[in-house]
């Protein structure tokens, strides 16, 4: 229904002005093949068998200039990992308040990261995919408003963006299971400063997060599903008089915060990017998360060679453990189970990527990336080789 109503709204916006509107169609596409290099390993959605669906995608953007500083934009994206079903990822109206300020409303991308806005436009960056340790939040769009202000501060280009809105839909929890989720009362600000070959960016976003199956009898969301392991532990804790500890497992209208900072350099033939991000949803099953990457690239004619190191770590703080007393003995299993569930959310991974981008055409690039990820908790590793073509038109 949502998809349809967006389409209708945009259609109306276009139709009412069709005689004057200047409509532009742009697009971008990626065709990527890849596989893990060892049996029984998986990484970035790949398994040990060559396939071309996982990271391939095709997108069309239609923008209509409705005159009087108003424009409408929609992006329709078909992803291989979603069977190439076309969906409206973005659909928004923009009003240019002045040459420096614009206001947009509709469905847009949440500006978590430096590359968030053009995450899917592979042509715009050097990797096959942006560093996944950092670029790991699976809610990527929201419905709401967006204000952007550009100006010069001395010789520096400054871009200030303020967003507000909400998200509801699927979210991937723990890298595998998909659950219903809601992100409400979201507010964010980010600021980018650039000078010729240098730019720096900081972002801060807060919101109220709910993840899991909605249980109408209790009016709350249950991560892992009603009656699942987390729910059972929650109920057992409540029955033993520790309702507060139990509720700290659920992710139901809890305060989430995201902080990101990064900089990039594009100096002659040298490219360098680094970003650090931290994310938490207080007093929930979700651990505190910290990630960063640093990436160096060297451009030589049509070729760009690059190496990237990434690190991500998720952990619950010590204060969350041992909250249930050891005695009486009847409480011991609860104490141990709660500790184990919290400990199971721990994650520490390092990823190393070597890659090459070849600009063989003014509007298309061929890329090859080899990545190795070490999981320091399970002591396992996986390697992925991926190659493909990104284009814009």
């Amino acid at each position: 229904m949502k998809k349809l109503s967006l389409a209708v709204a945009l259609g109306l916006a276009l139709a009412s002005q069709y005689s004057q509107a200047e409509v532009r169609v742009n697009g971008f596409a990626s065709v990527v093949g890849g596989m893990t290099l060892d049996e029984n390993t998986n990484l970035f959605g790949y398994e040990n068998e060559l396939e071309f669906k996982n990271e391939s995608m095709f997108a069309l953007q239609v923008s209509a200039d409705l005159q009087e500083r108003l424009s409408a934009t929609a992006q329709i994206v078909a992803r291989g990992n979603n069977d190439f079903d076309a969906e409206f990822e973005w659909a928004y109206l923009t009003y240019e308040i002045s040459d420096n300020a614009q206001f947009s409303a509709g469905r847009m991308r949440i500006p978590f990261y430096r590359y968030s806005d053009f995450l899917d436009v592979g042509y715009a960056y050097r990797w096959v995919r942006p560093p996944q340790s950092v670029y790991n939040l699976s809610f990527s769009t929201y419905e709401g408003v967006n204000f952007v202000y550009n100006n010069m501060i001395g010789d520096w280009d400054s871009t200030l963006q303020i967003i507000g809105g909400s998200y509801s839909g699927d979210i991937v929890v723990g890298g595998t299971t998909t659950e219903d989720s809601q992100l409400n009362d979201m507010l964010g600000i980010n600021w980018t400063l650039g000078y010729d070959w240098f730019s720096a960016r900081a972002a801060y976003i807060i919101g109220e997060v709910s993840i899991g199956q909605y249980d109408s009898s209790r009016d709350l969301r249950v991560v892992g599903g009603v009656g699942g392991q987390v729910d059972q532990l929650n109920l057992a804790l409540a029955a033993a008089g520790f309702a507060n500890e139990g509720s700290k497992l659920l992710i139901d209208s809890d305060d989430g915060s995201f902080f990101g900072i990064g900089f990039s350099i594009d100096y002659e033939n040298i490219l360098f990017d680094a970003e650090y991000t931290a994310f938490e949803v207080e007093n929930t099953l979700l651990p505190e998360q910290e990630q960063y990457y640093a990436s160096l690239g060297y451009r030589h004619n049509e070729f760009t060679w690059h190496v990237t190191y990434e690190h991500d770590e998720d952990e619950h703080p010590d204060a969350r453990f041992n909250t249930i007393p050891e005695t009486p003995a009847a409480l011991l299993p609860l104490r141990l189970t709660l500790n184990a569930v919290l400990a199971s959310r721990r994650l520490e991974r390092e990823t190393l990527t070597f890659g090459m981008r070849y600009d063989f055409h003014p509007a298309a690039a061929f890329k090859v990336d080899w990545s190795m990820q070490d999981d320091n908790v399970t002591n396992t590793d996986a390697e992925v080789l991926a190659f493909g073509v990104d284009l814009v038109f």
Partner: protein
Amino acid sequence: MRAFLTAAVFAFSMPAFAEVSVIVNSGNADALDKGTISKIYLGKSKSFPSGAKIEPVNLSDGGTLDEFNQKVLSKSSSQVNAYWSKLVFTGKGTPPKKMGSDAEVIAFVKSNPNAIGYVASGSVTGDVKVVATF
């Protein structure tokens, strides 16, 4: 020896550079330097110093486009495309319109008081005003 060879190969592989002229409507009195032209073509300046809304035009492809990108914007045409793809697909900007030939650019600039374009210097006619050459 190796340095010499590299230099020699580089010298012989250099294409013959054609001079690029940046042109505006003959009624346009604004003085434009390289920095200003670069800002206009990267979408950072939208109005002339006189306050009028700029209408920049690009060539759709070819040597003059590459030359202009390299000399004025200090970027390869691929880098310029990557730069604009970041703005286009985020609704933050629209690249200059593309025109197929020097003659079309000249005709557009001639008939639009706020237009700016560039052509190979050899194509310039008396219908437009040259503000800079590179």
